[in-house]
């Protein structure tokens, strides 16, 4: 029984290029108040193009309809739950959008005088201070543009700090449960990646870690809670093992939504970490970005942070570029400022105690999903979970139905799929993170959908194997797309 959705009519819509016709327009420029200039005259005829072949020509009303019709083909947080594990798809408060659009912020030029940028700089400073308090770290840079960019910044900081101690070292340890960005980042920062095996409970094995940590190891990149949603209970001892050998502990803050207001990485031995403002701090995903990946560090590492740094001087905010030990810039200007505005608005709305309440609701939601689904799906790791839980498709796979099929069938029930086939340490993983934004009613609908699908797998697996059935298009052939890539429209 599908309760959440009913089929409804959607509009078909060709590509922009297919609705174009010569002479149509959606713009009007004001009359020039200066003399026109002949482009060929001032730029040289060879430098001036004739026209942009194939570029669209569409009217205003057709454009509104074009993009509105396209938009109705998307699922979104505004339509319902996104149970994507490790993605923290929470509600995006609309006041945050409103304030980020205020003229004095949205139209601030990055090179305008500091004296005329005090409001923007105070927002950045206040966000830095709030994130330092939340993480228990000593200093924060807001420059990285996304989580992976924060990771790169963080590992470059590790390298700089170790170089200052005398040896940058060669290897980074990454648990086998980690996100793909962790090894990719380590490689980009010039390190050799060494994967370390989790124990049977899915957490770091201290014996394995002790053996792996040598004078060659620069850092361990740990996600805590890990990608199973399990808190690394030995995290403080892991930090001690690393520190004893002169290595550092890097924390991927992707799962920080489980900890805000409850525990702080700075208090359990983390030296460098990044946050994802587009996860934990509610800034919208926008179909894949923009994000923001601030990096928080302990005191020893502060001198190496990217330039510029904010500094208060005689009651005014200044940008400090004189930082001789800095790793340099990781991005032009100061980072994704508009995203920072939204994140600060989120923090202000909750306040300190409110943020902790959100964490508790997020963990309650995940545990509720787990408790209600345990009888219907295999739970390969039974350690207590925090903000997310990971099932496996092993029972359903026996009937030929895989995690990806169950995920596609969820679409027919009106839900976005969970994270499929990750983490890699769980075969046929179904990774579910509800976040605090889901009501009991939405959660129950979701859980009932998965229970119903489990029954379908027993009674009529074909129904699941060929899903989705109710979408405007059927299952998409991704293999064909990759075999012969068509990456642009041609007439």
């Amino acid at each position, binding site marked *: 029984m599908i309760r959440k959705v009913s089929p409804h009519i959607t509009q078909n*819509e060709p590509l922009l290029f297919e609705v174009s016709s010569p002479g149509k*327009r*959606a713009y009007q*420029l*004001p009359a*020039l108040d200066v003399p026109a200039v002949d*482009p060929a005259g*001032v730029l040289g005829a060879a*430098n001036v193009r004739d026209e*942009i072949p194939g*570029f*669209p020509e569409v009217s205003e009303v057709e454009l509104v309809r074009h*993009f509105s019709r*396209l938009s*109705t083909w*998307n699922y979104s947080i*505004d339509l319902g739950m996104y149970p994507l594990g490790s*993605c923290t798809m929470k509600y995006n408060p609309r006041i945050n959008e409103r304030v980020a659009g205020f003229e*004095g912020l*949205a*139209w601030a*030029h*990055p090179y*305008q005088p500091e004296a005329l940028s005090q*409001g923007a700089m105070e927002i950045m400073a206040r966000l830095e201070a709030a994130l330092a*308090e*939340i993480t228990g770290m000593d200093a924060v840079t807001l420059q990285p543009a996304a989580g992976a960019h924060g990771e790169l910044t963080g590992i*470059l900081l590790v390298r700089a700090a170790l170089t200052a101690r005398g040896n940058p070292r060669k290897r980074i340890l990454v648990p086998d449960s980690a996100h793909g*960005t962790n*090894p*990719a980042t*380590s490689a*980009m920062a010039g*390190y050799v990646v060494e994967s370390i095996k989790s124990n049977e409970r899915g957490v770091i094995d201290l014996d394995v870690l002790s053996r792996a940590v040598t004078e060659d190891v620069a850092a361990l990149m740990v996600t805590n809670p890990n990608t199973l949603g399990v808190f690394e*209970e030995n995290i403080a001892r892991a930090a001690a093992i690393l520190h004893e050998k002169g290595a550092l502990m890097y924390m991927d803050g992707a799962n920080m939504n489980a900890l805000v*207001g409850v525990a702080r990485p700075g*208090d359990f031995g983390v030296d460098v970490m990044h946050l994802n403002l587009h996860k934990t701090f509610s800034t919208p995903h*926008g*179909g*894949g*970005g*923009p994000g923001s990946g601030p990096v928080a560090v302990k005191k020893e590492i502060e001198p190496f942070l*990217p330039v510029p740094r904010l500094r208060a001087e005689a009651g005014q905010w200044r940008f400090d570029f004189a930082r001789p030990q800095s790793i340099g810039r990781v991005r*032009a*200007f100061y980072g994704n*400022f*508009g*995203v920072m505005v939204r994140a600060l608005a989120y923090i202000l709305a909750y306040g300190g*105690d409110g943020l902790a309440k959100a964490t508790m609701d997020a963990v309650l*939601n995940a545990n509720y999903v787990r*408790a209600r689904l345990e009888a219907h799906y295999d739970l390969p790791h039974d*350690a207590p979970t925090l903000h997310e839980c990971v099932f496996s498709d092993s029972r359903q796979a026996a009937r030929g139905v895989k995690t990806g099929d169950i995920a596609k069938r969820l*679409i027919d029930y009106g839900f976005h799929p969970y994270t499929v086939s990750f983490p890699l340490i769980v075969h046929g993983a179904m990774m579910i993170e509800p976040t605090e934004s889901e009501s009991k009613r939405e959660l129950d609908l979701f859980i009932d959908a998965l229970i119903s699908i489990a029954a379908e797998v027993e009674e009529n697996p074909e129904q699941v194997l060929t899903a*989705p059935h109710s979408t405007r298009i059927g299952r998409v052939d*991704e293999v*064909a*797309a*990759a075999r012969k890539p068509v*990456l*642009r429209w041609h007439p």
Partner: protein
Amino acid sequence: MRYLPKSDAERREMLNVCGVQRMEDLFASIPSELRLGRSLNLPPGLSEYEIAGYFKDRAADAAVGYACFLGAGSYLHYRPVMVDTIVSRGEFLTSYTPYQAEISQGTLTSIFEFQTMLCQLTGMDAANASMYDGSTSVPEAAMMASRITGRSHVVVSRAMHPEYRQVLATYAANQKLAIEEFGYDPETGASAPEDLARKLDSSTAAVIVQSPNFFGVVEDLNQYAELAHSKGALLIHIFTEAVSLGLLQPCAGTDIAAGELQSFAISPSFGGPYAGVIATRERYVRQLPGRLAGETKDSRGNRAYCLTLATREQHIRREKATSNICTNQALVALMATVFMAVYGKQGLRELAGQNLAKAHYLAGRVKRRFSGPFFNEFVVRTGARPPEEVNQALLDRKIIGGLPLGRFYPELGNSMLVCATEMSRREDMDILAEALAQ
């Protein structure tokens, strides 16, 4: 709290189902000595009204009501209302990365349109779905060229945006990429091909040239392409002012075009979020970093789109990926998509023409530092007075002048970089010109 959708009664009911008494019990797996044990030291939560008030005050402590002649990688172009109308739709704003193609066709189709328009603009065969910004697309393009050529020496023009060069240096430090700079012609302000020729050799992976360059000068990319290709290196064309693409002929010898799309209706927003992009020739597609949308069919034979060539990416290839990039700038790229559609074939050219006209009007009234052809930015001599002093006086007239260049180019200490766009009014340009003439 208004963002939390549960009553306490529901919470109790759910705790029961979980088999625990209190919320705190759910956190038993965190050793008690590692728990915070106090409230976060942050003020109590605010109402929507108070939040709006706080940011309104901050937004007032800003440069509102000034005419601004700054460019240098962030340009003040008009933002058509259509852009906000579309990107504030929750279906675009609050959707996730379109991995689940069946319920993400809106985003995927718009990315396909974005990629197509970027190809049309740059003359390339494929463009990715966005990078963080222009500056980070530079090292990504350099690493791409290094993978393609199997070489590790990169020569970059000193007339590229100084902050872009700094970002390249940060990334390159541990990539075994050797970065070497070549100079610019002190007369024309264009990059100096003779200097490039001296620094190029058979170990060079890429030549990186920005056009219009940081000084606003339109570069003759063909000669850099010839020089690069003569040594088996690639030419990477970097752009910071995308509106110029509406007027300037793409260079047939460019191998990788990369840059910043902020000019396409993306508000300056104190430096971000913006959207970068990398476009290239078909033969290099598999070395592109970042997401790509491709056309395919669904199980019923309909045209459909999905993310493709994922074997380049970190979630599949891990440490062997072309880049670690995951989250990109999708919504910002959508702004650029809507912008390009609004202006279209005629409009983008007309807009570029207006920028050209405004900048040339202003340039005709001041002392230009360089003689090379320019689009909407140029360097002005401020004579005996430091540019900071000129700018300070202009502030009283509600004008923000150009960017003093001494900070980046010590040899250009008496110069500022000035930008005029379609938003620049003649009367403000006259005031600026008058101040610069004094």
